[in-house]
C-alpha cells in the first residue's frame, strides 16, 4: 500500500473529527473569552480570562473536580473487578448459562435516564424503595441513600449500568483463552490464583485496557444519572464538572462561563487520559 493511499483512507475520519473538534471547540473557546449570557443579549465584549476565573473560583469547583475523579476512579475499579469476577464465574458450561448471560448484560442496554429513575424511585427511596423494605424486614433502620451517601449512590447506579459492559467484553475474551494451557497448569498443580495471575490476567490485559479507556471517556462526563437523582446535592456532595457546567449553561444561561467550564473539562479529561495511558496504554496500541 503506498503512502498516498494510506493518507487518503485516513483522511475522512481525521477531517470530520477535525471539523467536529475545530468548529464547536473553537466556538466554545471563543465563547469562553467573551461576555455571552443568553438572558442579556445586549451585554457583549471581550472579557479575557474572567469567565475561567469565575468558573474556577466557584465554591462548588474544588468538590466538583474531586467528585469527578472519585466517580471515574471508583466506577472503573468496581466495574473491572466485578466484571472480571463475574466473567470468570460464568466461564464454565452450566444449566441456563445463556439466560444468565442475557440477564447479566441487560443493564447495559437500558437508557441512563431510565436507569437512574428506576434506582431512585424503586430501589433507593427510603420509604417505599426495595432497599428500605429489605432493611425493615431484617429490622434495620432504612438508609436514605441519596441524601446520606449521594456520591456512593451515583457510583452504584453507574456501576450497575457499566459492569455488564465489562462482563460482556471479559467473558468473550475468556472464551478465547487457551484451554489446554489451563489444563496443563491445573495438572501441574497451579491453584486458582496462580492461574489467574499468570495466565488469565495477561490474556485479558488488552480487553481490560479497552474497557478502562472507553468507560473513562463516558464517566468523565456523567450527567443524566446525577441530574435525575441528586441534582448534584445535598450541597455539592455529588456535583461533578459536567453538572457544574450544566448549571452555568442551562440554569444561568451564561454561555461564556459554561464554555470556559467545557474547555476546562477537556483539559482535565486529557490529563486523566495521559495518566491512564501511562498505566495501561502499552496494551492499548502498538
Amino acid at each position, binding site marked *: 500500500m503506498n503512502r498516498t493511499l494510506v493518507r487518503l483512507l485516513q483522511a475522512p475520519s481525521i477531517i470530520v473529527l477535525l471539523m467536529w473538534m475545530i468548529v464547536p471547540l473553537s466556538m466554545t473557546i471563543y465563547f469562553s473569552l467573551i461576555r455571552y*449570557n443568553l*438572558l442579556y443579549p445586549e451585554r457583549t465584549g471581550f472579557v479575557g480570562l474572567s469567565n475561567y476565573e469565575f468558573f474556577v473560583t466557584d465554591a462548588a469547583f474544588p468538590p466538583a473536580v474531586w467528585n469527578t475523579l472519585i466517580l471515574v476512579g471508583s466506577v472503573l475499579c468496581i466495574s473491572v473487578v466485578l466484571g472480571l469476577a463475574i466473567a470468570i464465574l460464568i466461564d464454565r458450561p452450566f444449566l441456563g448459562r445463556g439466560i444468565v448471560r442475557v440477564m447479566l448484560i441487560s443493564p447495559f442496554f437500558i437508557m441512563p435516564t431510565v436507569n437512574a429513575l428506576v434506582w431512585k424511585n424503586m430501589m433507593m427511596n427510603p*420509604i417505599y424503595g426495595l432497599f428500605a423494605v429489605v432493611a425493615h424486614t431484617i429490622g434495620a433502620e432504612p438508609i*436514605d441513600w441519596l*441524601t446520606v451517601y449521594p456520591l456512593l449512590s451515583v457510583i452504584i447506579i453507574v456501576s450497575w449500568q457499566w459492569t455488564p459492559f465489562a462482563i460482556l467484553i471479559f467473558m468473550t475474551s475468556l472464551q478465547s483463552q487457551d484451554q489446554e494451557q489451563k489444563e496443563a497448569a491445573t495438572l501441574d498443580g497451579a491453584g486458582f490464583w496462580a492461574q489467574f495471575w499468570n495466565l488469565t490476567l495477561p490474556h485479558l490485559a488488552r480487553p481490560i485496557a479497552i474497557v478502562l479507556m472507553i468507560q473513562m471517556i463516558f464517566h468523565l462526563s456523567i450527567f443524566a444519572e446525577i441530574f435525575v437523582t441528586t*441534582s*448534584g446535592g445535598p*450541597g455539592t*456532595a455529588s456535583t461533578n464538572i459536567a453538572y457544574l457546567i450544566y448549571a452555568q449553561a442551562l440554569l444561568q*444561561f451564561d454561555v461564556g462561563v459554561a464554555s470556559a467550564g467545557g474547555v476546562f473539562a477537556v483539559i482535565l479529561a486529557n490529563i486523566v487520559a495521559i495518566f491512564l495511558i501511562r498505566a495501561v496504554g502499552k496494551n492499548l496500541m502498538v
Partner: protein
Amino acid sequence: MKYLRTTALGMMLSMSAISFKVAVADEITIATVNNGHMIEMQKLTPKFEEANPGITVKWVTLDEGTLRSRVTTDITTKGGQFDVMTIGMYEAPIWGSRDWLEPLEFGAEYDVDDILPAMRDGLSHDGKLYAAPFYGESSMIMYRKDLLDAAGMTMPDNPSWGHVKDAAAAMTDRDAGQYGICLRGKPGWGDNMAFLTTMANSFGGKWFNEDWTPDLDSPAWNHAVNFYVDLLTAYGPPGSAGNSFNEILALMNEGKCGMWIDATIAASFVTNPSQSKVADKMAFAQSPQAITTRGANWLWAWALAVPSGTQKKADAMKFMEWATSKEYIELVAETNGWAAVPTGTRQSTYDNPKFKEAATFDEAELKAILSADPSNSTQDKTPYIGVQFAAIPEFQAIGTAVGQQMTAALAGDISVEEALENAQAAADREMRKAGYY
C-alpha cells in the same frame, strides 16, 4: 463483497428515511410540561382542530427543568421551534420586558377582567399582559382531620408556625411510620426554595435588600431555616432531603403524612379516591404565619405565551385564547366533571355553584390565591417582584445554589448557619457578576 453490499444498502435505506423537515403552513408546535391539566388539554385538542379547520397542533411534552431550558434557549436564540410556549410566572415578566413575547390583547368575549387580578399582575410587565394563565396555584396546608381529631387538636384557618409544630408533634408516630409533617427538601429554586421562601417571608425575611444585596444572612432567614430543619428532623419522614411535590404526594396518598404545605393543586389529587387512600379525611387551612402573613403562601401560574417573531402568530393566538377561555373550562367540566377543571385563573370558576359543590377545597384555594401579592410579598420593602422567587434572570441559578445549601443543612451535612453563610456568598457572587452593584 456481500457484506459491503448489505452495508451500503442499509446506509441508503436509512438515508432515504431521513427527510428534511418541511414546515407545514398551518401546523403549530406547542411546548408544554407533563402535568395533568396539560395532558387533558392535549386530549381535548381535536375539539379545537374541529372548530378551526386547517390548523393542526403538534405537542412537545417535557419535564419541567428540561422544558425551561429548551424554551429559554429557543426564545433567546430565535430558534423558532415553538409557536406556543408553556411558561411560568417567573419567565413571563422577564421575557415580556425584553420584547421576546407577543403582548396579548383579547376581544370582549374572552373577558380578560375575569382573570384573577393576582394572576394578571404576575404575568404582566408595565401593565401589558404577556402570557395567559392556564391554571394557577398558591400554597396551603393540607392535613389529616382524622389524625388531628384523634390528637384532640384543631387547626385554625390561619395557624401560626408554633401551632403547626405542636400539631406535627401530636400526629407523629414513628413506629407506625406516621409522620406529622411533610415538606419539600429537594434542591431547586422551584422545589425546596419555593416553599422555604414563603416560610422565610412569614418570618420577616426577603431575598434582596433595596440595594440588591442578598439578605440571606439576616436573623429572619436564620430563624426560618432553623425552624424548618428542626421541624422536619423531629417530625418529618426519612428522606426529606430528596422530597419534592411528587414524592410527598405519594407519601400523603399512602397515609404517611399528617400535614403537608404545598401547591393548592395537590388538593385535587389528595381528595381523589382513585389515587388517595385518605381522600375523605383531608381538610385545608391557610399557610402558617410567623410574624406576618405577607408572602406566607406562594403564587404561581402555568401560562401560555406566544414568542414574538413566530410566523404563525394568528393560529398560535387562536389556540392560546381557546385553551385559556371560559369555554375551555366548561368543556373540561363536561368531559371530566367540575372537580377536574383547571383552577386558579378565573373568578367565574369560583362563582360557579357546580364547581363549589364538586370541589371541597375551592374556598381555601381561592382565599390563598387572592391573598398572594407578588409585588408586596415581604415585611420590608424589596426591589423585586415575586412571592417565592425574585423575577430577575439571575434567580434560577441563585435559587438553585441556595437550595443546595438548604438541602445540605437539612441532611445534617452542615449547620444552618454555615449553609446560610455559603448561600449568601453564592448569591452575592452571582449578583456582583451580573453587575447589580
